[in-house]
C-alpha cells in the first residue's frame, strides 16, 4: 500500500501548530491539549485505521502508523496511538468507533480480563496508557467462546491513577461486571497477544520518531555550542557520539517502518497474527527500538550537558517518553523471550529461511 503523504503532511502541520514541543514546555496551562485533540478529530487522524464503510478514513495501517512516527517526533502527549488502534480493532471486528479519546489494551502481558456468559467484562487492565483521560477503552478479552473485542465505558470502571516515567497517565483499571457498549467475536487471525503486538508496532514508530528529533536537536546544539574556543561538533569524541546516535536512529527508523509495512501487507494478504514473519517483524522492531532509545537518550543527554537536564529544555520530553514507551505493550525482554521461543520451536535450520523471507 502507498503511504498517504497528504495525511502525514497535515498531521505534521497540525502537531507543529498546536503542540510544538517548545510551546508545550513553556505553556502555562494545558489548553493546548483541547486544541490538539479537536484538530486530530477534524483531520480524521483518530479514525485513520477505521474502514470507510464504518465512517473511517481507512488510510492503511502503514500510513496510520506513519502518523505515530510524526507524533513521536513531537513527543505528542495524547492517546493518539491508542485511539487509532482502538478504531482499527473495532473496525476489524465490524464495530463502530465512538468519537473522543479511547484507551487500548491490554497493554501488559499477564493482564486477565474476561467476558462472562452474560456479556459483562471483569478483570484488571494494568498500566493502561491514558485511561484516566479517555471516555472508553477497547479491549481484547478472553470469553467462553474465544476472544472478543469489547468497547467499554471507563466511567463504569475503577481507575487507580498513576504516572509513567514521562509523567503521563498510566493507570490501573479494574472492571467488575461492566456492560460493554458494543462487543463482537475477535476476527479470524487474532490471537491473545494481538493487542500487545499492535501496540508494540505503534510504540516502535513513536520511539523511532522521538529518536529522529533527538538526533536533530543534538546536532543543532553541537553545531552551536562552543567550548575551548571551538564549536563542540569539531571534537572527535562529540562527532563519534553523534555518529553512534545516528546509527541508533537509523536502525530504529528502519525497523519500525519495516514492521509497519509488514503489518499492512501481511494482514492485507490474509495472514494472521500467528504468522512467524509478522511476529518477527513487529517483535524485532519493539526489541531493537527499545535498545536504541536507551543508548540514544544517553548520548543525547551527555552531549547537551547541563542544559539538557533542565525542565525548560525540550530534550527530556523526547527522551523520557521514548524510555517510557519501552514498557507499554510488552517490553523488549518479554518480546525477546517470545521471539526466542518462536525461533527455537522452529529449529536452527529454519532460522535463516525465516529471516531471508523478509
Amino acid at each position, binding site marked *: 500500500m502507498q503511504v498517504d503523504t497528504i495525511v502525514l503532511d497535515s498531521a505534521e502541520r497540525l502537531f507543529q501548530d498546536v503542540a510544538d514541543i517548545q510551546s508545550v514546555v513553556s505553556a502555562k496551562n494545558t489548553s493546548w491539549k483541547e486544541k490538539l485533540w479537536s484538530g486530530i478529530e477534524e483531520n480524521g487522524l483518530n479514525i485513520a485505521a477505521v474502514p470507510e464503510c464504518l465512517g473511517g478514513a481507512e488510510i492503511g495501517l502503514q500510513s496510520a502508523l506513519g502518523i505515530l512516527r510524526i507524533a513521536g517526533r513531537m513527543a505528542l502527549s495524547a492517546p493518539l496511538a491508542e485511539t487509532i488502534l482502538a478504531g482499527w480493532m473495532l473496525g476489524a471486528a465490524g464495530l463502530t468507533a465512538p468519537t473522543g479519546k479511547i484507551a487500548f489494551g491490554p497493554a501488559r502481558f499477564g493482564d486477565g480480563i474476561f467476558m462472562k456468559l452474560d456479556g459483562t467484562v471483569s478483570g484488571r487492565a494494568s498500566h493502561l496508557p491514558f485511561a484516566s483521560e479517555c471516555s472508553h477503552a477497547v479491549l481484547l478479552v478472553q470469553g467462553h467462546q474465544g476472544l472478543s473485542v469489547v468497547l467499554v465505558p471507563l466511567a463504569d470502571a475503577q481507575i487507580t491513577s498513576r504516572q509513567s516515567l514521562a509523567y503521563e497517565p498510566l493507570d490501573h483499571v479494574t472492571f467488575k461486571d461492566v456492560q460493554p457498549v458494543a462487543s463482537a467475536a475477535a476476527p479470524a487471525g487474532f490471537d491473545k497477544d494481538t493487542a500487545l503486538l499492535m501496540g508494540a508496532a505503534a510504540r516502535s514508530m513513536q520511539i523511532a520518531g522521538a529518536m529522529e528529533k533527538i538526533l536533530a536537536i543534538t546536532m543543532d546544539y553541537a553545531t552551536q555550542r562552543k567550548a575551548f574556543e571551538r564549536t563542540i561538533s569539531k571534537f572527535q569524541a562529540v562527532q563519534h557520539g553523534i555518529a553512534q546516535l545516528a546509527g541508533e536512529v537509523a536502525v530504529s527508523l528502519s525497523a519500525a517502518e519495516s514492521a509497519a509495512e509488514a503489518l499492512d501487507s501481511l494482514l492485507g494478504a490474509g495472514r494472521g497474527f500467528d504468522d512467524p514473519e509478522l511476529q518477527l517483524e513487529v517483535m524485532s522492531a519493539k526489541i*531493537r527500538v527499545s535498545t536504541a532509545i536507551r543508548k540514544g537518550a544517553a548520548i543525547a543527554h551527555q552531549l547537551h550537558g547541563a542544559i539538557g537536564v533542565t525542565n525548560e529544555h525540550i530534550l527530556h520530553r523526547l527522551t523520557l517518553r521514548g524510555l517510557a514507551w519501552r514498557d507499554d505493550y510488552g517490553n523488549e525482554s518479554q518480546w525477546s523471550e517470545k521471539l526466542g521461543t518462536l525461533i527455537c520451536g522452529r529449529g536452527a535450520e529454519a*532460522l535463516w529461511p525465516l529471516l531471508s523471507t523478509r
Partner: protein
Amino acid sequence: MTSTLEFQPLRLPERVQQLRLEVRAFIQSEIDAGVFNPDDPETDWEIHRQFARKVAARGWIGMTWPKQYGGQERSFLDRYVVNEEMLVHNAPNTVYFTADRQSGPTLIRYASERIKSEVLPKIIAGEACFCIGMSEPDSGSDLFAAKCKATRSEGGWRINGTKIWTTNAHQSNYMIGIFRTSAPTTENRRHGLTSFLVDMKAPGITCNLIDQMSGIRDFNEVVFDDVFLPDDQLIGEVDGAWKQATTELAYERSGPERFLETFAVLRNLVGLAGNSADQRLGEAIGRLVAELHSLRRMSVSVAGMLEAGREPTAEAAIVKDLGTIWEQDLPQRVRDAIAFLPADEAFDRFDEVLQFTTRIAPKLTIQGGTTEILRGVIARGLGLR
C-alpha cells in the same frame, strides 16, 4: 542542519527471492556432497577454485555487469541475495568474492578497454582472483600516507615497495592497488596516489603469508621489487586515485558480509537450545535474532538505494558500523547465553564454533576501515565535518 535519514522498507521482489531458492538448493547440494561444512570455513584453495567455476557456470558472478563483457545486466538485488546465501552458509567463495564486489566494478568504470575485455570475462568465469593493495606498514587508516612507489619507465611504470595485510595476495591473479606517483601537495594531501591493475604473476613480486591469531592464513606482506606495469594497466587518473573510490565504498560497506561473518554461532546456538530453552536463553536468542533482522532490513534498504542510483555514503557506513560491532559482540553474548547449559558432547561441538568466532571477532571492526574511521565518515555525511 540536515539529519534526515530515511530507510524505505524495501522488499525483495518475488523473482529475486526465487533466485535465492535456486542458490540455496545449489549450496545445499554442495554441502550434502561433502564439498564444504557451513560451520567450518574451508581452507583448501582447490575447493575454492572448483566452487568458483560451479558458481560461474550458473551465471552468478558479475551478474550485474554489462553484457558486452560477459555480464547479464541483472539488478543489484539479484547479486545481493546470491551473496547473502553464500555468506550465511560459509560457502567457499573466496576466489571471486572481492572481484565480484569491488574490483570488477572499478575496472568497468575506470580501466582501459583492453583490460576490460581481457579481465572481466575471466572474473565472470570464476578464473580470476583479486586482492586489494591499499594498506602498507606505515599507512593503514591514513591511506594517503602510502609510500609504495610507481615511477615512469619506458612503456609503463615500475613499482617498488611493500603492501601489507593483503588478503589472498598469494592466491590472486590480480591486485588493484594504489601507488605513490607524486608527492602530496600542500593544498591536497590526498594528491599523488594512482590506482593500477597488477598482474600478481609478474616478475619481482613476493608474497609472504602472515599467520592470524584465529589460525587463518590468508593475508600477506607483498614486496614489489622493480615490478613492471604496462601503461594500459593504469586505472583512472594519474595522481587522482582519491577521486575514484566513492560509490564502490557504499557497496563494500553495506553488504551482508558486514554482519554475517559470525552467523554460524547463532544458528548453532538455536540448535543447542533445542526446544528446551529456558526463559533466559530464550530471551537472549530472541534479542539476537531481532537485532540481526533489524540490521538486515537496513542493509536491504541500502541495497535498494544503490539499485536506484543513489549514493548513500552515511547510510552504508552506518550499516557497517552497527553490523561489525554486532557480529563482533555476538560470540560474547552467545557465551553469556549458554552459561548455565550442561557441558555435554553437543556443548563441546558447539564450543568449537564459539571459539573460532571469538578468535576472529577482533578483526571484524578493523578490516575494510575501522570503527573510528567509519564514525568519521558518518559524521561527515551528517554535515559535521
